[in-house]
C-alpha cells in the first residue's frame, strides 16, 4: 500500500541526482531492497510508469536488487540466509539470532545520458 510514497521518493532522488549530473535523460535506476523490506516490485513498477511520465525519468528502467535476509546465530556463530519464514539456526537449532542483512532500502545508482 505504501508503494506510491516509496515510488515518489525514488523519483525525487533520481531527479535530484540527474539534475546535479546535468543529465538530459535517466535510462536506468538501480534499487537495493532487502527481503525484510515489505515492498512489492510490481507495484512500484506500476506507480513508476504513472508518475515518471513527463519527467526526464520517463521510460527509465527500474532494476531491483533483492538482498536475502541474513542471520547470525549468537550461540554458534553460524551465518545463514532465509528466504521464507524465520527459522532457527540450521546448525544448532538456536533461536538466539541476530539479523545482519536484508533490511537494505536505497537507490544505489542511476544511468543517465548527458
Amino acid at each position, binding site marked *: 500500500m505504501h508503494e506510491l510514497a516509496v515510488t515518489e521518493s525514488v523519483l525525487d532522488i533520481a531527479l535530484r541526482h540527474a539534475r546535479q549530473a546535468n543529465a538530459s535523460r535517466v535510462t536506468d535506476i538501480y534499487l537495493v531492497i532487502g527481503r525484510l523490506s515489505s515492498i512489492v516490485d510490481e507495484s512500484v513498477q506500476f506507480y513508476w510508469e504513472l508518475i515518471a511520465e513527463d519527467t526526464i525519468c520517463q521510460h527509465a528502467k527500474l532494476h531491483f536488487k533483492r538482498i536475502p*535476509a541474513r542471520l547470525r546465530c549468537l550461540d554458534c556463530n553460524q551465518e545463514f540466509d532465509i528466504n521464507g519464514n524465520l527459522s532457527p539456526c540450521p546448525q544448532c537449532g538456536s*533461536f538466539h539470532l541476530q539479523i545482519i542483512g536484508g533490511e537494505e532500502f536505497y537507490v544505489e*545508482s542511476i*544511468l543517465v545520458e548527458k
Partner: protein
Amino acid sequence: MSPTRVPVVEKILDANDQIAQQNRALLDRSKTLAVNIMASPGAGKTTFILKTLEAMRAKYRMAVIEGDTAPVTIDADKVSALGLPVVQINTGGDCHLDAVMLHTGLQSLPLQEIDILLIENVGNLICPAAFKLGSHLNLLVASIPEGDDKPYKYPNMYRGLDVLVINKMDMLPYLDFNMPYFLQGVEILNPGLKSFPVSAKTGEGMVAWLDWLDEVVQKHRQNDH
C-alpha cells in the same frame, strides 16, 4: 552516446527521516514525550489509549493525535469526550502516518503544555513501520485474536519497536494462541523487547504498563535536551 553511471546510495525514505528528526527536535524543546502507537485494525488501540489517558491524566498533561484514513471522527470524539486536546489527521486514504503529516499535527497543538503525546497511527502492520515519525517510543498493540504468527509475517513492524503490548489477554483461554511461539518470533526480531501482556478491557496487566510509562516520562523530563 553511452549512458553514464551516477552513484547515488541514498535511502529511499531519507526525506521522511529528515523531517522525523525535525519533529523530534520540536518535541524535545517542550520535553513532550511522544509515543507512536501502531496496531492492526481491531487490536484495541483506541481502548488501550483511552485507558492510558484515564489513568495518567491526573499526573501528566496528555494529548492525542489521531491518524485515520477517512474523515471519521469516532476515535477523536472519544478522546475529546475526556476533555483532552486531540488533533485528527486524515491521511486521505494513505495507509500510514508519515513525518510530514505528524509535523502538521504538531503545529496545531500547544506542545509547551503537553507532557505525553499519544499518536494513534493508522491500523496497519506493514506501512507504518516504514515511516519514522520522530516519536520517542514506537509501540505496537498486538492482540491475541490476531494469531501467534504475526511477528513472522510482519517482521518489519516488530524490528522497529521499543515496546510491545499484547492486548486481549482475557481471550487467551478461548483461542489457539501459542504464546511461546509468538514470543520466539519477537525475540529473533527484537531481542529483549519490553513487553506487557494486558487486557485493556478488564484492566489486567495495565498497572505494569502504566508504571513503566510513568518511569519513562520522569526520566525523559529530567534529561536536558
